[in-house]
C-alpha cells in the first residue's frame, strides 16, 4: 500500500514549494508563465498517475479531458468579456467528468493492452470532433480574448490577467490537488484501487465491484484533468484540437513514467524535469553554454545549433536513455535514499472473551449443474448438496472439471444449465462480487494474495468487503470493527503476530496460503470454496492447515478441491468424486475408499495398503 511520504520526499516537496512561493519576488514574466505552465501540467499528470500508477489502468487518451477542460473556457467565455472563474472551473470539471463517465463506461470493460488502445481511440475521436468540424475554429483553434476573473456580484476577487495572481492560484491548485490525491489513495476507496492494481480478480472475488471502482476513479481523474485544462487555456488564451490529441496523452504518460508511476509526487517531478529538458533543448544559446563546458566555444555553438534545430529528436533520445537507465523514474532514485517506508502501527485489539458459540454456516445446493465450453462439456449435470458446518472434499483426476465446477459456484463462470442455491437463494450466473457479498468466499489454486501489501493490509481489504460500496472515503467509519475482524482472522488462520505486518511477498508459501484463508474469514464469508489449499505445503504445514480447516468448520462450511489424498481423506466429512465432468460418487471418506467405481476410474492402487 502506498506509504506516507518519507521525510526525504517531504523535504524535496517543501523545498520546491518554498521556491515557488518566492519566485514572483525575483522571477520575470517568462519565468512566472513557464512555472504556471509546469504546475498546471503537474495537476494533469498526477491525475493520470491516479489511473496508471495507483489503479494500474494505462490510459492513452487522458488529454481528451485536459483538452475538454481547456475548450470549456472557450465555450463559456463571452466574445469580448471575461468569463467568471466561479462558473468556468466547475463547468470544465463537470464537462470533463461527464465525458469521462460516458467513455469510461465502455473503456473500463477492457483491460491491459485493450484499455490502452481503446482510450487512445476515444481520445482520437474527441480530437477529430474538433479537428474535422468547425466547432471552436476547427483545425485552426480559437482564441479566448479576455482572461477569466473571479467575481461575486460586482466584486472582483481575482483576475487571471494578473500573472502573479494567476501564478499563485495555480500553485494553490497544485498543492490542493496533490493533497487531495494523497488523501484519496489512503481512504478505503483508495486502498481498494491499489488492490485492484495488483490483483483485480482477487478483489472481485472478495466482493468488490471492480468495474464500479475503476469507473469511479476514471471519472475523478478525468474531472481533475479537466480542471488542469481550464487553467491551461487561461495561460495563452488559446485552444486548439491538438490539446486533445494522442501526442498530449503520450507526453503525459512520458512525464508519469519519467517521474516514477504510482508515487504521485514522482510524476510531478517528471513534469518539471521534462519541461526543463524540453526548454533547454529548444534553446541554441543554452545548449551552447552547456556544451562549451566540455568543448571549444565554436564547436559548442555549432553543435548547440544543430541540436536545437532538431530538438524533438534529441528529446526522443533523452527519453529512451531515461527509460532504459531508470525504469522506476526519478522517484526510484529518491526512494533509494529515503529508506524503508514506515507503516502505521496496528491498533491494540483485545482478544475475544472466550470461545464463541458455534455459528450456523451456510448450506450450498447444486442441482443438475452443467457448464459447456463450445462442444466440450466440462461439468455435466452434477447434483450434490453440501450441508452447513462440514468439510466437503472434491476429488477427481485433472481435467475432471473440478476447477470449472467451483468457478461456476463462485460466479467466475456462468452455468450453461442448472441451479446453484446458497441457503435456498439462487446464485448461479451472478457476478463474482455479488456471490461473494452473499457470503461465499473462495481461494485459488495459485496463491492469490496482494503481494505488495502486508498480511494485515490484505485482511483489512477483505474486511472492508463487507461494506464494498466504492464511495467510502472515511478512514474512521467502521474502522474499529474492521480492525477487530482483521485481528481475529489473522489469529484464526494461525498467522503469527510478528508476521502480520510484513509484506505478503516476504511470507513463506505456507503462510501465504494461510493468509488467503485469513482473508476469507475477515471478509465474513460463511462458506469457503478452497482450490487446493494444501498445494505445495510440507507435512507440518499440511497438518497445521488440515487442523485449521477442522476448526473453521465450527462456524463455516468448507468446500475444497485437493489432490493430497491422505490429507483430504483425513480432513473431510464428505467427499465428492468428479470424473469427466460427471458426479461419480458422493459419500463419507470410508464409502469413497471402498467404492469400486472410484477405484476403477481414479484411485487405482492408492490406499490398498491403507488400514480400513
Amino acid at each position, binding site marked *: 500500500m502506498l506509504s506516507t511520504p518519507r521525510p526525504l520526499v517531504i523535504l524535496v516537496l517543501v523545498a520546491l514549494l518554498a521556491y515557488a512561493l518566492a519566485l514572483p519576488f525575483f522571477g520575470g514574466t517568462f519565468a512566472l508563465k513557464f512555472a504556471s505552465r509546469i504546475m498546471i501540467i503537474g495537476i494533469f499528470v498526477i491525475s493520470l498517475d491516479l489511473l496508471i500508477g495507483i489503479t494500474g489502468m494505462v490510459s492513452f487518451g487522458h488529454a481528451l479531458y485536459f483538452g475538454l477542460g481547456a475548450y470549456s473556457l472557450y465555450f463559456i467565455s463571452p466574445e469580448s468579456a471575461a468569463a467568471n472563474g466561479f462558473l468556468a472551473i466547475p463547468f470544465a470539471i463537470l464537462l470533463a467528468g461527464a465525458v469521462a463517465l460516458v467513455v469510461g463506461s465502455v473503456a473500463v470493460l477492457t483491460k491491459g493492452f485493450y484499455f490502452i488502445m481503446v482510450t487512445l481511440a476515444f481520445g482520437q475521436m474527441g480530437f477529430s470532433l474538433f479537428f474535422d468540424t468547425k466547432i471552436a475554429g476547427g483545425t485552426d483553434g480559437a482564441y479566448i480574448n479576455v482572461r477569466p476573473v473571479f467575481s461575486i456580484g460586482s466584486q472582483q476577487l481575482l483576475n487571471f490577467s494578473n500573472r502573479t495572481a494567476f501564478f499563485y492560484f495555480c500553485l494553490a491548485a497544485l498543492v490542493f490537488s496533490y493533497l487531495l490525491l494523497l488523501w484519496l489513495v489512503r481512504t478505503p476507496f483508495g486502498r481498494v484501487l491499489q488492490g485492484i492494481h495488483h490483483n483485480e480478480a482477487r478483489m472481485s472475488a472478495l466482493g468488490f465491484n471492480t468495474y464500479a471502482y475503476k469507473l469511479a476513479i476514471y471519472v475523478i481523474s478525468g474531472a481533475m484533468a479537466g480542471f488542469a485544462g481550464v487553467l491551461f487555456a487561461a495561460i495563452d488564451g488559446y485552444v486548439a484540437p491538438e490539446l486533445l490529441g494522442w501526442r498530449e496523452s503520450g507526453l503525459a504518460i512520458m512525464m508519469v513514467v519519467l517521474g516514477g508511476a504510482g508515487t504521485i509526487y514522482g510524476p510531478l517531478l517528471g513534469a518539471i524535469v521534462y519541461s526543463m529538458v524540453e526548454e533547454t533543448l529548444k534553446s541554441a544559446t543554452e545548449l551552447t553554454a552547456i556544451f562549451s563546458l566540455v568543448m571549444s566555444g565554436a564547436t559548442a555553438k555549432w553543435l548547440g545549433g544543430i541540436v536545437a534545430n532538431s530538438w524533438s529528436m534529441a528529446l526522443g533520445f533523452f527519453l529512451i536513455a531515461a527509460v532504459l537507465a531508470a525504469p522506476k523514474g526519478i522517484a526510484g532514485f529518491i526512494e533509494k535514499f529515503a529508506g524503508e517506508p514506515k507503516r502505521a502501527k496496528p491498533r491494540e485489539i483485545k482478544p475475544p472473551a472466550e470461545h464463541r458459540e458455534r455459528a450456523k454456516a451456510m448450506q450450498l445446493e447444486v442441482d443438475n449443474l452443467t457448464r459447456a465450453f463450445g462442444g*466440450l462439456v466440462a461439468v455435466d449435470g452434477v447434483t450434490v448438496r453440501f450441508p452447513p458446518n462440514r468439510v466437503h472434499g472434491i476429488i*477427481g*483426476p*485433472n*481435467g475432471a472439471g473440478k476447477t470449472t465446477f467451483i468457478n461456476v459456484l463462485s460466479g467466475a463462470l456462468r452455468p450453461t444449465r442448472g441451479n446453484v442455491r446458497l441457503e435456498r437463494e439462487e446464485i448461479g450466473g451472478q457476478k463474482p462480487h455479488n456471490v461473494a457479498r452473499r457470503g461465499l468466499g473462495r481461494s485459488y489454486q495459485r496463491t492469490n494474495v496482494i503481494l505488495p501489501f502486508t498480511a494485515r493490509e490484505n485482511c483489512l481489504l477483505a474486511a472492508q468487503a463487507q461494506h464494498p460500496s466504492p464511495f467510502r472515503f472515511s478512514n474512521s467509519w467502521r474502522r474499529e470493527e474492521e480492525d477487530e475482524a482483521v485481528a481475529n482472522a489473522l489469529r484464526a488462520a494461525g498467522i503469527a503476530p510478528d508476521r502480520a505486518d510484513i509484506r505478503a511477498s516476504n511470507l*513463506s*508459501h505456507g503462510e501465504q496460503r494461510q493468509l488467503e484463508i485469513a482473508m476469507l474469514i475477515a471478509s465474513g464469508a460463511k462458506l469457503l470454496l478452497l482450490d487446493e489449499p494444501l498445494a*505445495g*505445503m*510440507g*507435512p*507440518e504445514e499440511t497438518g497445521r492447515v488440515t487442523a485449521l480447516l477442522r476448526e473453521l468448520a465450527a462456524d463455516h462450511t468448507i468446500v475444497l478441491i485437493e*489432490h493430497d*489424498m491422505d490429507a483430504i481423506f483425513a480432513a473431510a466429512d464428505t467427499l465428492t468424486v468428479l470424473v469427466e465432468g460427471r458426479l461419480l460418487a458422493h459419500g463419507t471418506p470410508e464409502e469413497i475408499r471402498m467404492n469400486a467405481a472410484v477405484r476403477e*476410474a*481414479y*484411485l*487405482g*492402487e*492408492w490406499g490398498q495398503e491403507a488400514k480400513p
Partner: protein
Amino acid sequence: MSQPAILAENIDTHYGRSHILRGVSFRVAPGETVSLLGRNGMGKTTLLRTLAGLVRPTSGSIRLNGADVTASRASARSRAGLAIVPEGRGIFPNLTVIENLTFAARPNSKGERPWPLERVYALFPRLAERKHHWGNELSGGEQQMLSIGRALMTSPSIILLDEATEGLAPKLRDEIWSTVKQITGSGIAAIIVDKNLNDLLALADRNTIMAKGEIVFDGSSAALRADEALIHRHLGV
C-alpha cells in the same frame, strides 16, 4: 568412459534478491536416471530451469556431454541434446497434436532419430488417436504424454521431467511411470522431480534431495530407504 551427460559445478542462482540455489554441484552419467527430491520451494524447479538454460545462474558452470554450455541459451542447449518437460507441460494450445510433436523434431548429433513419430505413437497410442486435435482439447494426462513425446522427438541425450505426474489420477500416474521406464531404458539420461517418493525410488538409479537451495543427500534408493530420519526431515513421509 564418456563425459557425464550433465555436469554442473557450484551453481548459484538468484531471483531478484532471493538466493535460490546455493553452490549446487550435480552430475548425471549418460543413461543414468536421477531423482530430485525435496519439499516445495527448496529449489528443485529452479535447478532444472537453470540446467535447461531458462534461468541464468549468477555463478558456476554447466557442461552438457562435455561441452561448456554455461553461457549458451536454452535453445542452444536443446539443440545440443537436452530436453525439458516443464511443470505445467508447456503444450502449445493453438497447435494440433501432430504439430506440437513435430514442432522441434530433429536428429541427434550422430544424425539419428531414435524417436520417430511412429515410435512416439507406439509409446502413447492416445496421441495417435488425437493427432488432429488442438493442444487445448487434451486432458491433463494427454498433455503430459504430448509434452514427453515432443521432448523425445528432439532426440535428446538427457531429459528433465518436472512434476511429471502432478495432478494426474493415481491410475494415469502408473501409466506415465511405465513409459518413463521405457524411455530411460532406451539410454536417455533423466532427472525426475516428483512428489511420489515410492514411485521415484523404484525408478531411479540414484536419488538426490534438495533443501534450502543445496543438495543434502545423494545416494542409492536402498540407502535412502534405510535412512528414515532423513526421509522424515526432508520429505516428511
